[in-house]
């Protein structure tokens, strides 16, 4: 039998616990709501509002200061007076207004009557016309009605007009009384307008109870002031690996000032974006509604917290700071982490495809140029950069150029011969630094030298037929144009071609002579052009160049490998395909000579030398480098960090690799043939950084065509022209396409430098330009620098002609010249002007006038008919300095005046046209030579 009212435990106590627990539960639920609503981005937005409020307050203070207090007082006083006088007239004004009201009532009535009458008129007209058409007898009736109504309407209209006129007069009167006061009120308003708007702004921004309520939990679905800002981009997609998802960039939730002016000094994240005329503003080429943020900066656009947006710290220091401040951690699984700010330009290449240089992307362009110059494309396949030229000299004839002894020392350390060489260090690097490995490297070097000596063709070297003078040769090198691409003995700045110092320690005078007379003789693909040197000139140059020696290099001990090392290398190679015992048997059969050859061939195959140099036996060999076409998106887990402790980021790995390519072998045990092979280019931090930007730009990310910067046919032609210009270094000598000529840095007198060829497309005729590029002739006899013969194919010449023409905004047609008709009189005036201006003093016209002599031989004007475009000649004669800065041609029409006011009415335009027309119709004498040979350059006496 159960006890009566038994207690298991004390209920009041339990009730107390119940109360406590309930309160705790309530607290925890409130905490839940808070945790949900207290978002990081709201804090930032509130901070931004405070920032804006500060600015608004500052504006208000400024506006208040700007208000002219005295004037305001004055106006207020006058306004008060005006109001007083109005008050005095109050009764009258009231009467006027009553009258006006009555008038309006009358007007209303009359107007209504007029409108009604119109209705009747229209109706009667319809019936009348219908009846008339159908010959209905009622037509006459309606005609009469119509007439009546019309008359009535006319009367009413008169009445209406009268009433309106009267009303106008009365209204004007009323207004007059009030006009004075109204005007003053407007003036006062003007004065305080700025202040009022500023005050209104401050009021709006000031946090108040209303804004707090609107942002409160549960109520913030109505009209919150703190809300997520996003840009939805129809055309751009995020790669979620199994699906492409439309990009939604929510960066502006925290980066609130980024597309607004006025926040250039604000702290991050509110700072205005740099270069707003280029980015984000509606009139820029990258407006934020179309482009968003993440397509350039990467990162996770749909996230709204600092960490989840995949911000990348600039360096270790900043990372620690972020870890402390924001509890930052890297977003491991989000591939497209934000690019470090240094490398933002890498994203430009996603849309700006197929261009040689992306406009305004300095660092990316630098990286690209470096990749081209250092021959990265030779070893590493990169889509879009295939079929580039080999950056190293051809080794098809190397046995005639250098000795094996030189080759081995060069291979062991190229920089010991030439510090500025682009040839990287291949052997004796950090992963081959143990003593045995050194010996093996030496064996490989010796082998390569032996192979190259045996497997290259002996070239026919021509000995200089006349003795050369090194002094003259030096002058020639400095003045003929070699410095456009080369540096020699401290002169010149161009790093396009190899530095020519120390040539005497490398090769023979015969080689230099033969080469310089015709580079394509040895190497049909070389980029070095032919300077059309005479035998004497070539001999002088050869004599000079071989006089430059590198004593230190000559003293370095030769490379002598041990036979054991050679054997070891042969065996290692054999063991790849044979058993050890078989390998040894094979080895025993080989002579030392054969072993060396074998080691050489296998080393070349192993190191991939043929990526930069033409080598016999390796014409079809495949490059050894990794494909880099998608390296901008390379999976971080597929990059081997080895045992090196650096940040696990793509850019970190690339940078480290470029600075020291073999570093990831450190601490590892690896077989010889498994070791890393990339050579060391000795990049500075800056260079490596630019190259990293370039590498990060290589992605296969698909951007829809509508968003890409597509090139029309003309722009494509310009880009292929640009590629040729880059390949042959036109900008070494000529200022062209936005780049100043390299040589203008060290040629003092602008007139002595090769011409500026910006605008060449509008200057010369296309057929002439095409032929000139294929076979240059001397145009400017005083220039010591001569335009070399590049040996352009017809296709290349055409590409260049198109390039120049499109750059100048011309169409390409290769048509001949069509000269407009001109009167004989004008021609006669032209001839007279031509003689009066004494053009012949400088411009040799033909052999006869050469007798008149000029110390400077300006371009022969006989060329103009075939060479120049008539319109250009006009611009040139107006002011040559505009088209060619620093030119020696003076202007004869300064500031639109002319020294001959009696000819052709003193009109400079007419005079210039007359000269031009004369020039283009001038027929040379029969006995004048067809082509003027280039005269020896005359050095001017200062």
């Amino acid at each position: 039998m159960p006890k009566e009212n038994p207690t298991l435990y004390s209920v009041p106590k339990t009730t107390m616990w119940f109360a406590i627990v309930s309160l705790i539960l309530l607290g925890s639920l409130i905490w839940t709501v808070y945790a949900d609503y207290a978002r990081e981005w709201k804090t930032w937005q509130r901070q931004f509002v405070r920032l804006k409020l500060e600015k608004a307050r500052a504006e208000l203070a400024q506006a208040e200061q700007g208000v002219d207090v005295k004037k305001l007082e004055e106006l207020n006083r006058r306004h008060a007076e005006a109001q007083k006088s109005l008050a005095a007239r109050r009764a009258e004004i009231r009467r006027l207004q009553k009258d006006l009201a009555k008038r309006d009532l009358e007007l209303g009535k009359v107007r209504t009557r007029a409108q009604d009458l119109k209705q009747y008129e229209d109706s009667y007209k319809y019936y009348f016309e219908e009846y008339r058409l159908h010959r209905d007898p009622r037509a006459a009736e309606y005609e009469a009605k119509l007439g009546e109504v019309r008359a009535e309407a006319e009367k009413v209209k008169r009445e209406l007009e009268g009433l309106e006129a009267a009303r106008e007069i009365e209204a004007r009167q009323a207004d007059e009384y009030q006009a004075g006061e109204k005007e003053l009120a407007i003036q006062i308003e003007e004065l305080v307008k700025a202040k009022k708007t500023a005050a209104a702004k401050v009021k709006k921004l000031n946090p108040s109870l209303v804004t707090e309520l609107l942002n409160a939990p549960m109520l913030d679905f109505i009209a919150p002031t703190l809300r997520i800002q996003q840009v939805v981009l129809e055309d751009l997609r995020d790669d979620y690996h199994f699906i492409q998802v439309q990009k939604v960039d929510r960066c502006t939730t925290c980066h609130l000032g980024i597309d607004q002016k006025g926040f250039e000094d604000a702290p991050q994240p509110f700072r205005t974006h740099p270069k707003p005329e280029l980015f984000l503003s509606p009139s820029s080429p990258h407006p934020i509604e179309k482009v968003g943020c993440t397509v350039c900066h990467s990162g996770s656009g749909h996230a709204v917290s600092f960490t989840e947006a995949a911000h990348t710290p600039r360096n270790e220091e900043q990372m620690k700071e972020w870890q402390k401040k924001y509890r930052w951690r890297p977003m491991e699984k989000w591939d497209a982490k934000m690019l470090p700010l240094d490398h933002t330009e890498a994203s430009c290449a996603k849309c700006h495809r197929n261009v040689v240089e992306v406009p305004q992307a300095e660092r990316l362009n630098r990286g690209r140029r470096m990749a081209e110059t250092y021959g990265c494309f030779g070893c590493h396949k990169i889509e879009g950069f295939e079929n580039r030229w080999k950056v190293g000299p051809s080794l098809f004839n190397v046995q005639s150029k250098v000795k094996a002894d030189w080759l081995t020392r060069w291979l062991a350390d190229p920089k010991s011969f030439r510090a500025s060489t682009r040839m990287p260090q291949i052997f004796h690097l950090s992963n081959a630094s143990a003593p045995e490995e050194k010996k093996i490297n030496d064996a490989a070097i010796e082998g390569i030298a032996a192979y190259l000596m045996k497997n290259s063709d002996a070239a026919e070297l021509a000995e200089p037929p006349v003795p050369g003078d090194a002094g003259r040769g030096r002058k020639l090198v400095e003045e003929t144009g070699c410095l456009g691409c080369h540096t020699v003995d401290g002169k010149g700045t161009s790093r396009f071609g190899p530095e020519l110092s120390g040539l005497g320690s490398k090769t023979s005078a015969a080689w230099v002579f033969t080469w310089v007379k015709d580079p394509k003789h040895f190497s049909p693909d070389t980029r070095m052009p032919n300077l059309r040197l005479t035998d004497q000139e070539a001999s002088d140059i050869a004599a000079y160049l071989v006089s430059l020696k590198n004593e230190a290099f000559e003293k370095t001990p030769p490379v002598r490998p041990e036979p054991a090392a050679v054997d070891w290398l042969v065996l290692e190679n054999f063991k790849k395909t044979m058993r050890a015992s078989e390998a040894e048997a094979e080895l025993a059969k080989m002579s030392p000579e054969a072993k060396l050859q074998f080691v050489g061939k296998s080393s070349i195959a192993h190191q991939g030398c043929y990526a930069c140099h033409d080598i016999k036996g390796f014409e079809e060999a495949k490059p050894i480098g990794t494909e880099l076409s998608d390296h901008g998106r390379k999976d971080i887990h597929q990059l081997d960090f080895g045992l090196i402790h650096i940040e696990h980021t793509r850019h970190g790995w690339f940078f480290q690799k470029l600075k020291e390519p073999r570093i990831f072998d450190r601490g590892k045990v690896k077989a010889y043939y498994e070791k890393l092979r990339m050579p060391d280019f000795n990049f500075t931090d800056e260079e490596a950084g630019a190259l990293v930007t370039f590498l990060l730009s290589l992605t296969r990310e698909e951007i829809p065509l509508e968003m890409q910067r597509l090139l029309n046919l003309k722009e494509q032609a310009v880009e292929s022209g640009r590629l040729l210009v880059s390949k042959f270094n036109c900008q070494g000598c000529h200022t062209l396409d936005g780049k100043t000529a390299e040589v203008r840095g060290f040629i003092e007198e602008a007139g002595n430098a090769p011409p500026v060829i910006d605008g060449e497309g509008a200057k010369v005729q296309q057929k002439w330009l095409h032929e000139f590029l294929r076979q240059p002739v001397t145009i400017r006899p005083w220039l010591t620098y001569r335009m070399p013969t590049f040996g352009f194919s017809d296709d290349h010449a055409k590409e260049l002609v198109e390039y120049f023409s499109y750059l100048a905004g011309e169409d390409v047609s290769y048509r001949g010249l069509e000269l407009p008709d001109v009167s004989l009189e004008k021609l006669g005036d032209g001839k007279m002007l031509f003689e009066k201006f004494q053009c012949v003093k400088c411009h040799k016209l033909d052999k006869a006038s050469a007798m008149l002599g000029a110390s400077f031989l300006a371009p022969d004007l006989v060329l103009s008919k075939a060479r120049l475009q008539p319109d250009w000649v006009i611009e040139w004669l107006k002011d040559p300095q505009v088209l060619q800065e620093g030119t020696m041609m003076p202007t004869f029409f300064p500031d639109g005046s002319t020294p001959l006011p009696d000819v052709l009415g003193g009109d400079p335009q007419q005079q210039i046209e007359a000269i031009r027309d004369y020039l283009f119709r001038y027929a040379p004498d029969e006995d004048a030579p067809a082509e003027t040979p280039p005269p020896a350059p005359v050095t001017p006496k200062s």
Partner: protein
Amino acid sequence: MKTMLALGVAFALIFTAGLPAADAATLAGKVAFEGTAPVAEKMAMDADPTCQMLHPDGAVADDVIVNSNGTLKNVFVYVKEGVTGTFPAPTDAVQFDQHGCQYTPKVFGIQVNQPLEIINSDNTLHNVHALPQNSKEFNLGMPIQGMKLKKTFTSPEVMVKIKCEVHPWMSAYAGVLEHPFYGVTNEEGAFEIKNLPPGNYVVETWHEKYGAQTQNVTIAGADEAKELAFSYKG
């Protein structure tokens, strides 16, 4: 301290400005030449028969002209530092003539925005190619005898080279300054800078071949006549 000095100078200027006659501190001097005068090269003018006719005895290079009294001609002397106040450009032009296929004067001074009147007195084509770094470059053709053209320099520069492309032996130098305190040594090797207000100045001399030299000078009061001596070694 500096303000006191400035005030003092200002005071001085105010007083001296009202007394033009009293404000006639003159800086004069000679530029001597030590050593043997270099032999002047002969210049061949046969390229242009007109020029050759004007110099039947042949012409010599004029970059170094040593006067008979052992002084150097065509040395540009000017006040380099210490000038205060603004000096509006004079409206009368500096005359620059091409005569006998040579420039006259060869070395001259001109103020910023002061007009330079260029005359061609010869019956042949000359061109005047000025190569300033700080102002706009110009290259004017002057084919007609007697024609005149006006140009100005907009920024100070010491020295601006002027040359002729048709006759490469012709060269002249212009010293463009913001103030009128300059002079050029004449056949006596003497120069004179007038109306210099009191103050501390740095005076520099410039020669085409022998370079520049400086000296400090202090003008204590108005009406002072200071003598400066410079010397170049050959």
